[in-house]
């Protein structure tokens, strides 16, 4: 089980790299890209917590989070494009 904490440490280092890119990104597009990638990485975190705690319902959280992340990324892309959302 402690091996999974090592994996979680790798993912945490990756998350801090993404947070650096969110904080210091030169443009708004960099921040939008980093937010998208962070959302995909969180799905991996949720799956690791499903193994560590032994609770099966974390997989449902992973599905829901990936759906929400997809919609949010599309909204950010439309916002960057400078158009209306209902187009």
């Amino acid at each position, binding site marked *: 089980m402690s*091996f*999974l904490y090592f*994996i979680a440490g*790798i*993912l945490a*280092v*990756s*998350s801090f*790299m*993404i947070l*650096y*890119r969110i904080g210091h990104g030169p*443009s*708004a*597009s*960099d921040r*939008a*890209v*980093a937010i*998208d*990638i962070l959302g*995909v*990485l969180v*799905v*991996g975190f949720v*799956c*690791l917590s*499903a*193994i560590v705690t032994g609770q*099966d319902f974390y*997989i*449902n959280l*992973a*599905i829901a989070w*990936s*759906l929400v992340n*997809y919609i949010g*990324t*599309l909204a*950010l*892309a*439309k*916002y*960057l*494009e*400078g*158009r*209306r959302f209902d*187009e």
Partner: protein
Amino acid sequence: MSSNVIIGYVIITIGAIFDLLGCIGLLRLPDVYNRLQAATKSVTLGTMMILIGTAVVTASPWVGIKAGLCAVFILLASPTAAHALARGSYLAGVRMWDKSVVNKFKERAEELKYEPGEGE
């Protein structure tokens, strides 16, 4: 420790290494489009491998079905979102890197930029 747990841990480890390499690419590459390319592909594959490894470790059919569903959805949705982000970034005026060699979206972007406005 049974064999499926060991196989699942190996798959999860490879996925986590893919995630780490993708995030290094997100940190180090020079351009928005290069960063998007590296990070999206690597992190999508890494997260899919973590999902499949979770299904292998738990060895439960419900977890396997849900993890496979989530992996297929990420496989379909993440490149679509990356495409939309790249398109939005280009139309927002983010410049490409100086050493980029090909730009097949240029004519279409100029057409789109000179379209009449949409009722605003």
